[in-house]
C-alpha cells in the first residue's frame, strides 16, 4: 500500500479542500452574532412559545390557554391587569342586575377590525351565540349545561350587549378576559375557512403572512389606528413555536428570542447563563379523582378510599427525589391564594398507618388495584407514587397512552389522573374545571363544595377568605383533588432587551402589554 504514498500530496489537497468546505459552511456563518434576524431590531420582540399557538387556525374560541398569542391580534371584552384582576377593554362599562343573573356590557365606540368592519353589539352577540359549538372549547362552561351557562345574549342597541345567565354569575367578567372574551369580526365569523388561515380581530397587531410559517413562526406588525396602541411597546412581535424545552432554552440563552416560557427542567441552565428569569408559584400538581361515583373503579366511590390515597403519599420524598425547588403540599390551592391553610399539610400529610386503617374501614383491608393512563411527562412521578401506594396495599397499574384520544378520554375511563393545575381565579376554576369541567365528566356533586364556591363568588374580604378556606379544605377532605406539590412556572427574558417580567396574578404567561424594553 505504501507504494501509493506519492499521491499523498494530492490526498492532502483533497482533504484540505473538504475541510475548507466544511469550515466555510461554518465560518461563513460565524460573523458577529448568532442571534439571527428576529432579535436584531430594537423595536421587535421575539417570544418563544411552548407550542404552536395557531395549530387549529385563528379562531381564539378554539383554545383555552392561548391568551398571550391571540391578544396580539384580538381585543377581548375585558383584559387582565398586572395585579391579576380584570378591567374593561372592548367593554367600557359593565353592570349586573340585582341577583347577578344578567350582565349588561357597554361597548367601546369607534373600534374597527383589521378588515375594516366596525365593532357592534350584534358582532359580540354573534360571537357569544357560538357558545354551544363543542369545537369552540373556550366557551365550554358557558354552553348549555355549563356551570356558567349563558341562557341568552341580546343586543338592544349598537353599543349594548346583555348576557342572561342560567344562575347567578357575580364575577363573569373574569371569564371574558381571555380566549372566550375575544371578539372575531363578522367577516371572520361568516367564513370559517378564512378564519382558519388568518385572524379577524381588532387587536394591536396584524399577522404579516410573508414573515410567518405555520407551526413555526408568526410575525405580527403594529396596526395603524389601533385605539390602545400606546399600551404595546413593540412595533413587531414575532412568536416562535419552540415546543422542545431545551430548544426553547437554547434560543433564549443564545439571544434568538427575547422572552420565553422556561420549563422547570431547564430553569437552572437558563439562570446559569445569566439570562433573566421570573418565577411564579401557583401551579399545584395534583392527582384529580375522576371517578368520584365509583363507576370505573368501585373503591373510588368511597370517600375513605380517596382519603387513604391522600395520606399514603409521601410528598416530601417525591419532591426531594424528583422536584427539587418545588414545595410539597396537601392544599388544593396554591400557597399565595386566599384560603390556603398550612395545617392541611399536617392533617393530610404522610400517614401510612392511617391510610391502611381507612382502607380497612372501607372494606379494602387487602387493598385493590386500578389503572391510570400515563404520558411521558408524568411517567416518573406516577412510578414513584405507585411504589408509595403499593406500601399500603393499593396496586396502581400504569398504562402509557397509545393516542392523544386515549389520553384525553382518561377523564372518563380511569379513576384517577395527573394534572399540573395552574389555578386561575379559584371560583372560575371551580365552576369551569372542578365542578363543571373536564375533571367532573360524571357530574358528581358535593353540596358543600357547591355551597362554598357560591359563597366565595358572592363575597368579598374576610367572608370570601373564609369561604375559600372551607372550599380548599373540602376539596382535600373529599379527595376530589389529591395535591402533591406546588411547582413554579418560569418566564425567561433577555436582560439587555427586556425589563424584568411580571405576571398578571397567577397567569404563567406575562401579558403582552406588560413586556417593555429594558431602555
Amino acid at each position, binding site marked *: *500500500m*505504501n*507504494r*501509493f*504514498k506519492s499521491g*499523498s500530496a*494530492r*490526498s492532502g489537497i483533497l482533504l484540505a479542500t*473538504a475541510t475548507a468546505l*466544511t469550515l466555510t*459552511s*461554518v*465560518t*461563513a*456563518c*460565524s460573523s458577529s452574532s*448568532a442571534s*439571527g*434576524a*428576529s432579535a436584531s431590531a430594537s423595536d421587535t420582540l421575539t417570544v418563544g412559545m411552548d407550542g*404552536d399557538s395557531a*395549530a*387549529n*387556525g385563528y379562531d381564539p374560541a*378554539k383554545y*383555552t390557554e392561548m391568551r398571550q398569542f391571540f391578544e396580539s391580534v384580538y381585543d377581548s371584552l375585558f383584559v387582565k391587569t398586572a395585579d391579576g384582576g380584570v378591567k374593561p377593554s372592548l367593554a367600557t362599562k359593565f353592570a349586573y342586575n340585582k341577583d347577578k343573573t344578567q350582565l349588561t356590557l357597554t361597548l367601546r365606540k369607534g373600534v374597527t377590525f383589521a378588515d375594516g368592519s366596525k365593532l357592534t353589539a350584534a358582532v359580540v352577540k354573534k360571537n357569544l351565540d357560538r357558545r354551544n359549538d*363543542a*369545537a369552540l*372549547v373556550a366557551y365550554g362552561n358557558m354552553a348549555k349545561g355549563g356551570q356558567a351557562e349563558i341562557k341568552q345574549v341580546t343586543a338592544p342597541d349598537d353599543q349594548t350587549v346583555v348576557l342572561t345567565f342560567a344562575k347567578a354569575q357575580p364575577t363573569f367578567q373574569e371569564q371574558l378576559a381571555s380566549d372566550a372574551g375575544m371578539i372575531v369580526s363578522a367577516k371572520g365569523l361568516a367564513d370559517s*375557512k378564512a378564519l*382558519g*388561515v388568518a385572524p379577524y380581530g381588532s387587536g394591536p397587531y396584524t399577522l404579516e403572512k410573508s414573515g410567518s*410559517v*405555520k*407551526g*413555526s413562526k408568526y410575525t405580527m406588525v403594529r396596526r395603524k389606528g389601533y385605539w390602545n396602541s400606546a399600551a404595546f411597546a413593540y412595533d413587531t412581535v414575532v412568536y*416562535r*413555536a*419552540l*415546543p*422542545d424545552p431545551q*430548544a426553547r432554552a*437554547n*434560543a433564549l*440563552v*443564545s*439571544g434568538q428570542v427575547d422572552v420565553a416560557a422556561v420549563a422547570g427542567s431547564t430553569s437552572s441552565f437558563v439562570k446559569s447563563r445569566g439570562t433573566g428569569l421570573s418565577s411564579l408559584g401557583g401551579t399545584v400538581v395534583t392527582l384529580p379523582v375522576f371517578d368520584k361515583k365509583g363507576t370505573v373503579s368501585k373503591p373510588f366511590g368511597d370517600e375513605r378510599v380517596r382519603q387513604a390515597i391522600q395520606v399514603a403519599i409521601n410528598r416530601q420524598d417525591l419532591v426531594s427525589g424528583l422536584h427539587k425547588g418545588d414545595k410539597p403540599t396537601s392544599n388544593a390551592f396554591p400557597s399565595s391564594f386566599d384560603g390556603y391553610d398550612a395545617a392541611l399539610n399536617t392533617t393530610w400529610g404522610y400517614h401510612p398507618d392511617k391510610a391502611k386503617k381507612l382502607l380497612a374501614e372501607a372494606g379494602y383491608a387487602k387493598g385493590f388495584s386500578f389503572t391510570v393512563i400515563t404520558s411521558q411527562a408524568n411517567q416518573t412521578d406516577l412510578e414513584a407514587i405507585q411504589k408509595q401506594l403499593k406500601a399500603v396495599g393499593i396496586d396502581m397499574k400504569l398504562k402509557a397512552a*397509545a*393516542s*392523544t*384520544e*386515549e*389520553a*384525553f378520554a*382518561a*377523564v*372518563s375511563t380511569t379513576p384517577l389522573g395527573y394534572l399540573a393545575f395552574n389555578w386561575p381565579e379559584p371560583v372560575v376554576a371551580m365552576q369551569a374545571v372542578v365542578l363543571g*369541567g*373536564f*375533571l367532573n365528566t360524571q357530574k358528581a356533586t358535593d353540596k358543600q363544595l357547591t355551597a362554598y364556591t357560591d359563597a366565595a363568588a358572592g363575597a368579598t374580604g374576610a367572608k370570601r377568605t373564609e369561604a375559600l378556606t372551607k372550599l380548599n379544605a373540602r376539596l382535600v377532605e373529599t379527595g376530589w383533588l389529591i395535591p402533591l406539590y406546588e411547582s413554579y412556572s418560569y418566564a425567561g427574558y433577555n436582560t439587555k432587551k427586556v425589563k424584568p417580567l411580571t405576571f398578571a396574578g397567577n397567569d404563567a404567561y406575562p401579558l403582552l402589554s406588560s413586556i417593555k424594553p429594558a431602555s
Partner: protein
Amino acid sequence: MTRFLARRAAMAVLTLLAVIVLTFALVHSIPGSPGAVMLGPGASARDIHAQNELLGWNQPLAVQFWDWITHAVRGDLGTSLTGGNEVGPDLASRLPVTAAIALGATALSGVLGIVSGVVAAVRGGLVDRFITAFSGIVVSLPTFWLGILLVYVASIRLGWLPATGYTPFADSPVDWAKSLALPVLSLAIGGAALVARQARASMVEALGQEHIRTLLATGIPPWRLLYVHALRNASVPVVAGLGMQFVGLFGSTVIVEQIFALPGLGQVAQAAVTSHDFPSVQGVVIIATVVVVVTNVALDVLISALNPKLRAA
C-alpha cells in the same frame, strides 16, 4: 436505457400507490380521531362524533380514499383537518427546509467520508488506523447528542451560529447558511464516518485488483492510477451508500428539526400523526415516497453510468 428507465418509472408509480394505500390504512387504524383531538379532554362521545362528521372522518373509508386520491392526482392534497390550511402549499413551503438539510448533510458527509476513506486506504499505517478507529467512534454517536453538543459549543458558548430556527434563502443567503450549518453538521458527522469506512474498504479492494497492478507497471502517474482508475472502481458501492444515506437522512431530519426548531416536513408529520390529520400525513408521505423513488431511480442511472456492466443486468 429507455427501457431501463421505463421499467424503473413503472415500479416507482406502483411503489407510490402502495405506500399511499398503506398510509391511509395506518392512519385510520391508529386509535383515536381528529374530532377527539380537536375537542380536548372531557368531550362527550356525541360531540366527538358530530365533529368527526363535520370533518368527513365518519364517511366510509373507500369514499374518503377516493375523494382524496381524485383530488391528489390534480395536485390538490386537500385541507388540513385541524388547521384548515391547504396542505399542498404548506408542505411546499417546508420541503426546502428538509431537502436542504438532507442534501447538505449528504454532500458534506460524502466529501468528508470519501476523502477520509481514500486517505486511509492510500496512506495506510497509523493514518489508516487513526481514521478507522475515529470513524468507528463517531459512527456510534447519536444525532441528537451531537446536535445538543454542537448547539452548546457553537451557539451558546461561542455565539457563532443560531441555536434554532430557519431563514429562507431568498430572505438572506448568509442567514440561510447559518441556520442550516448546525443541523447539517449534526447529521453529516455520523454519515461521514460511515462513508469513510465504506470508501476505505472499497478503495483497498480496488487497489488490490490485478488491472491496477498492471497499470502501475506501465508507469502511469500514481495520481491518475488512484483518482481515475481505482477511485472509479471503488465509487460504485460508495455512491449507492450515499444515495441510501440521503434517503435515511431525509427521514432523520425529524429529530434534527425538533432540536433546532426547524419548520420542515418532520415537524408537520409529527403534529399531523398526533392529531390524526390524514390529509397532512398523506401529503408528507407522498413527498417522502417521491423523494425515495426518485433517488433510487437516479442512483440506478448513476451506477449504470459508472459501471456499464450493470446496465445489461
